[in-house]
C-alpha cells in the first residue's frame, strides 16, 4: 500500500470535507452520489483504522508533523475507532434513505448533502481530537451543521427550534471556550496529552473552574437533564433524516468529549462530580421517559426517548473504577442507541411521508400495511427498552454488572425501572400495529429503499445483542494517553 494511503485518520477528515464541498459545487443532483461514494470510502478508511489498532495503545498522529504542544495531534484508540466505524455504519443507510426521502417529499434538496458532509467531518474531527481548542472548533462546526439541518424546510417551528438550539449551543460553546482559556492560562497548552503530563495533583482554583465550565458547556450540548430542553423541539421538528443523524450521532459526540476528558485530563476524578453526573443521568431517564409517555406527536416522543436514553450514558461515571466493564457498557449503549434511534426516526419519517401526519394516532392508519416499517419500529423499540436479545439489553446488562460490582443497588433499580418505563412509552407505538384497519385511508407510496434502510438499522441494533465480541475487541483497552 502506498504510504499516502496509509493515513486513514487524515483521510477521514478530508474526504467528507471534499465531497461536501463538491456536493455544493455540483448541486443536489450529484450531491447524493458524492455522499454515497464518499461514505463508502470513509467506511474503508475506518475499517483500515480498526485493522491497524493495537490493543491498549493510543496512536498519535501529529497534524502537519508538529507534535503537541506546538501542533495539534490526532489520537486513535479503540473507543475513537469504534465511534468512527459507528458513524459510517449509521450514515451510509441514512444517506440512502435521505436520497429517497428527498425524492418522495419532492422538495428542493437544498443544502442537505453539503451539510451532512461537513457534519460527518466534524464528527470525525471530534472523535480524533486530542486538543481542547480543536475540540471547540469541531464542536462549533458540528453545532452549526446541526442547526442548519434542524432549520430544514424553513417551517416556523423548525426555525424557532433551530434558533433556540443555536443560542444554547453558542452559550455552551462560550462556556467551554472560557474553560479552555483558563486552562491555557494555567498551563500554557491545550494539548490533552501535554496537560496530562504537566497537571498537578492539586490543580489551582482556575483549573477547577475551567473544568466545571467545560463540563457544563458539554452537558448542555449533550442535552443532559436539566439542559435537555432544547433537544425535543429541535429533534422533533427537524426533517426526519436530519433528526436521525442528530439523535444518533451528534449528541453522542459531546458525550464522547466528556468521557474523553474524564479519562485523560480529569483521570483523578471527583466522586461528587461523578455522582452528580450520574444523578442527572438518572433524572434524565425518569423525566425523559415520562414526557415520552405523554407525547402525542410521534417524532417528539422519539426525541424525548433520546433524552432518556442519553441518561444511561452518564450513569457510567461513578463506575469507571471497573474501567473495562463501564466503558464497554457505554460503548454498547452508544452503538445500540445510535442504530435504534436512527431506525426509529427513519421509520417515523416513513409514517410522515405515507400519511402526511406526525402523530402517534396516525400510526393506526398504517396497521397491517408497511410491514417492513413496523418491524423496524418493533426491533428498534426492543433495543431501546433494553429487552433481550438486543444491543440495548447487552449494554444494560453490562451497566448493571458494573453497578453490582460497586454495590450501587439504587442504580441497579434505576436501570431496571428505566427499561420498564421505556416499554411503557414504546408499546404505545407498537400496539397501534394491531389496531383494526381503521379506515381505507389512502397512503402515499413510500420508496421501498426507505423502509429497508430503517429495517436494516433496526436489525443491526438487535443483532449486536447476540454478537458483540467484535465491538468489545475493537474497544480493547482505552488508551489513557
Amino acid at each position, binding site marked *: 500500500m502506498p504510504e499516502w494511503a496509509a493515513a486513514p485518520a487524515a483521510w477521514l477528515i478530508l474526504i467528507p470535507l471534499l465531497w461536501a464541498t463538491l456536493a455544493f459545487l455540483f448541486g443536489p443532483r450529484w450531491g447524493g452520489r458524492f455522499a454515497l461514494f464518499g461514505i463508502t470510502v470513509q467506511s474503508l478508511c475506518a475499517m483500515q483504522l480498526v485493522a491497524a489498532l493495537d490493543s491498549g495503545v493510543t496512536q498519535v498522529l501529529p497534524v502537519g508533523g508538529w507534535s503537541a504542544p506546538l501542533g495539534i495531534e490526532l489520537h486513535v484508540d479503540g473507543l475513537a475507532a469504534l465511534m468512527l466505524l459507528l458513524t459510517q455504519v449509521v450514515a451510509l443507510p441514512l444517506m440512502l434513505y435521505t436520497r429517497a426521502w428527498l425524492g418522495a417529499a419532492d422538495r428542493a434538496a437544498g443544502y442537505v448533502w453539503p451539510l451532512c458532509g461537513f457534519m460527518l467531518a466534524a464528527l470525525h474531527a471530534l472523535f480524533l481530537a486530542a486538543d481542547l481548542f480543536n475540540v471547540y472548533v469541531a464542536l462549533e462546526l458540528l453545532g452549526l451543521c446541526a442547526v442548519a439541518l434542524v432549520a430544514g424546510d424553513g417551517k416556523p417551528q423548525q426555525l424557532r427550534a433551530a434558533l433556540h438550539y443555536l443560542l444554547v449551543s453558542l452559550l455552551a460553546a462560550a462556556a467551554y471556550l472560557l474553560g479552555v482559556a483558563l486552562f491555557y492560562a494555567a498551563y500554557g497548552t491545550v494539548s490533552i496529552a501535554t496537560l496530562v503530563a504537566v497537571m498537578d495533583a492539586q490543580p489551582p482554583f482556575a483549573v477547577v473552574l475551567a473544568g466545571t465550565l467545560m463540563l457544563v458547556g458539554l452537558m448542555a450540548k449533550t442535552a443532559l437533564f436539566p439542559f435537555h430542553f432544547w433537544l425535543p423541539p429541535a429533534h422533533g421538528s427537524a426533517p426526519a433524516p436530519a433528526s436521525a443523524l442528530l439523535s444518533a450521532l451528534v449528541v453522542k459526540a459531546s458525550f464522547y468529549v466528556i468521557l474523553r476528558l474524564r479519562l485523560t485530563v480529569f483521570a483523578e476524578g471527583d466522586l461528587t462530580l461523578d455522582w452528580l453526573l450520574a444523578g442527572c443521568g438518572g433524572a434524565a431517564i425518569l423525566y425523559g421517559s415520562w414526557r415520552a409517555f405523554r407525547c402525542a406527536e410521534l417524532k417528539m416522543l422519539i426525541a424525548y426517548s433520546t433524552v432518556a436514553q442519553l441518561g444511561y450514558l452518564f450513569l457510567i461515571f461513578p463506575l469507571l473504577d471497573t474501567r473495562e466493564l463501564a466503558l464497554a457498557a457505554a460503548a454498547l449503549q452508544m452503538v445500540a442507541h445510535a442504530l435504534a434511534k436512527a431506525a426509529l426516526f427513519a421509520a417515523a419519517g416513513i409514517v410522515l411521508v405515507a400519511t402526511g401526519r406526525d402523530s402517534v394516532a396516525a400510526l393506526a392508519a398504517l396497521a397491517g400495511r408497511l410491514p417492513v416499517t413496523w*418491524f423496524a419500529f418493533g426491533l428498534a423499540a*426492543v433495543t431501546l427498552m433494553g*429487552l*433481550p436479545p438486543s444491543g440495548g439489553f447487552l449494554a444494560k446488562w*453490562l451497566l448493571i454488572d458494573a453497578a*453490582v460490582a460497586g454495590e450501587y443497588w439504587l442504580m441497579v433499580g434505576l436501570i431496571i425501572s428505566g*427499561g420498564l418505563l421505556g416499554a411503557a412509552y414504546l408499546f404505545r407505538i407498537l400496539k397501534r400495529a394491531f389496531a383494526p384497519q381503521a379506515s381505507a385511508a389512502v397512503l402515499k407510496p413510500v420508496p421501498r429503499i426507505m423502509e429497508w434502510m430503517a429495517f436494516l438499522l433496526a436489525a443491526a441494533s438487535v443483532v449486536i445483542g447476540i454478537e*458483540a465480541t467484535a*465491538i*468489545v475487541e475493537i474497544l480493547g483497552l482505552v488508551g489513557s494517553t
Partner: protein
Amino acid sequence: MNSAQALPLAVLASSLVPGLIIFALPQEQVMLRSLLNLAGAVVKLVLIVVMLFGVRAGATYGFNHEVIPGLELAFKMDALALLFVTLSAGLWLLTTVYAIGYLEGSPHRSRFFGFFSLCVTATIGIAMAANLFTFFVFYELLTLATYPLVVHRGTPAALRGGNIYLGYTLLGGALVLTGIISVRSLGGPIEFTPGGTLAHLGEGHAGQLRVAFVLLVAGIGVKAALVPLHGWLPHAMVAPAPVSALLHAVAVVKAGAFGIVRVVYEVFGVEFAQMLGVLQPLAWVAALTIIWGSLRALTQDELKRRLAFSTVSQVSYIILGVAMFGPAGTVGGLVHLVHQGIMKITLFFCAGNYAETLGVHKVSGMNGVGRRMPATSVAFSIAALGMMGAPLTAGAVSKHWLNMGADAAGLYWVPWVLFASSALNAAYFLPILYRAWLLRPPPAWPQEQIAAIGWRETAWLLLLPPLITGLATLGAGVFAGFEMSPLAWARLIAAREYMQVTP
C-alpha cells in the same frame, strides 16, 4: 461443529427459520406457509426423537455462543430439557394443524404464524438454556413473541388484555433480572448444574439467597400464574383459541413452571433450597394457588375463562411437586408438566371447536353439544375427567405420584389439598359434561358456521388435534409403565437429580 452441537442448534432453527421466512411471505401464500410450518414442526420432532434416544443412553448435547468475552449464550439438552422440548414440539405440531384450520381466511395470518413460530423458538430456548443469562434472554423473547398473538384480533378488549399481559410479564421479567443480578453478585455466572450452582455457598449468605430465591420465583411465577400474580391469564383469554392453547399448555405458563423447576433444582439445588427453608413456603403458595384457581373457576360462565382459572390451579400441581422435598414429589411435578399440557390443550381445542363451529362461548349455552359434536365432546370429557384425576387417565398418574411425594416429605396436608382440588374440579367440570351429554340442544345454535356432514361434525383440521390429544391423555395414563412414557422419563430425571435414590 459436531452433531452434539448441531442438533440443539437445529432444533432452535427448525422453528426460527420458518418463522422469519413466514414474516416475509405475502398473505396469499397459504400453501407455502402451511408447508413451511408443518415441515418445521415435523423436522423438530424428528430431531428430538433422535436426541431422546441419545440422552437416555447418556449422551450430552449442547453448544455455546460467546456474546461478549465472559458472557455466553449456552444451551444444553439434558433429560429435563428434553421433557419440556418434546411436549412443546409435539403440541406445537398439533396446534399448528389446528391453527391452520381455525384461522382459515382471517386477516394477518403471516404475522400470526410468524410470531407463533417465534414463540415456540423462545420456548425451546428456555428449555435448553444452560445458564441464567440464556434463560432470561429467551424468557423475555417469549414475552415479546406472545404479545402480538394475544392482541392479534386488535379489538379494544384484546389491546387491553395485551396491556395487562405486558404489564405483568415485563414486571415479572424485571424481577427475574433483579434476582439474577443478586445471585450473580454472589456466585458469578450461573450455569445450570444438577445439584445446584449455589449449593456450595453454604449458610453464609442465607439472607441474600432467600431474597434472590423469592425474586426469581416471583418473577418466573408471573408466567406460571402463581396466585397472586395470575391476574393476566384470564385477560389473555381474548386471544384466538390456538393462542390460548399455546399459552396455557405449551409456552407461557409451562415456561414459568419449567423455570421454577430449573431454579429450584439447578440454581439452588433442591437440598440447598430445603436447607434455606424456602421450599415449604413455595409449597404453601402452590397449594393456595391450586385452591384459589379452582374456586374462581366454579363461578365462570364463559368456557375459556373457566378453563383459564383451571390452568391457574393445575399448573401449581407442578410447583407443588417440585416444592416437596423428595424424588417422588419431583416425579409427580414433572410428569404433570406433560400431562397437564396434553389435557389442557385438548380442552382448549374443544372450546375453540364449539366456538368456531356453533358460536357457543358460554357454559350455559352448551346444552346438548354432545349430540351435535360427539367426537369433540368425547375428547373434552376425557380431558376433563383427567383433570379430576379419574382412573386410567394421565391425571390419575400425576396425583398418585404427588400423593406419594407428600407422604415421603411428611407433608400431611398436601393430600387434602389435592383431594379438595379434585372435588372442585369435579364441581366445575361435571356440570359441563352433564349439559353437553344429557340436556336437550336448543332449536338453533347461536352462530353455526360449519355444517356437519355425516361423521365430520366440523372441519377435519379442527377435529383431529383434540382427538389425538384426547387419546394421548388416555395413553399417558394407561401406558404409564412403558419405557418412553412421560412417567418413565420423569423418573429418569428425578434419578439424575437426586443421584442416589431411584424412585
